[in-house]
């Protein structure tokens, strides 16, 4: 399990939700709020690990996706 922390002033909560949903088939996740952070606990599913997906890379990808969506929404390009 890897814990990702996203600061609330820098990341959009909706973007994090979307990122978690997007990678839901590769990992099980738990979302929490801790102080000024969104905390996402990521555990890669046995199937994705068996297919050679690295849990760390998965977390990096999820984090990148959340940041990309946050920036797009900050610039008014969000669809939600």
């Amino acid at each position: 399990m890897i814990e990702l922390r996203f600061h609330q002033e820098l990341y959009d909560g909706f973007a994090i939700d979307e990122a978690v949903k997007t990678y839901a088939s590769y990992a099980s996740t738990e979302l929490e709020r801790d102080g000024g952070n969104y905390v996402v606990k990521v555990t890669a599913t046995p199937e994705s690990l068996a297919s050679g997906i690295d849990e760390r890379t998965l977390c990096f990808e999820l984090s990148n996706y959340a940041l990309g969506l946050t920036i797009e929404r900050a610039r008014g390009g969000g669809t939600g």
Partner: protein
Amino acid sequence: MSVDLGEGLVRVEFDEELYPRDAIYGAAYVFIDRCYVHLDRVADKRIQVSLKAKKPGIDSPALAGEFQNELLGQAWRQKIVEDNRQLVETITARALGGAAGPPGLDELLAMDIGEETAFDDPLGIAMSWEEKYKKKGKTNEAKGEEDVVGASATSGGEAP
């Protein structure tokens, strides 16, 4: 200042007073296709950017330098946009006003045009040519002829 943490991971800190958050977002977005980018707030008005190249063998300090250059460019572009915002808004408003063109049928129908609100026409421009130049003495004769022509046309139409 950048810190190389090994494994291709490098961290750079920026002051939000010098580099606005939108500029940091802009630079991060440029790097997102070739790096894993993570933002964090390490102190008040200070943002930490973590960069990790997706492909191995990329020089981390060079990556941090490229990010700093991109950030400077983004901040400068943002300043130009802010400086020219009023000018752009004025030109856009004028262009849209001109593009709207004359009023449409709906607007004309919605206008309150009556005897009192109608425009003045001292030169008689709105008057028809016949109305303006016909001789007053011939008015009745012409009317009579029109009646005769109209009647014959009607009777002609009914003849077998």
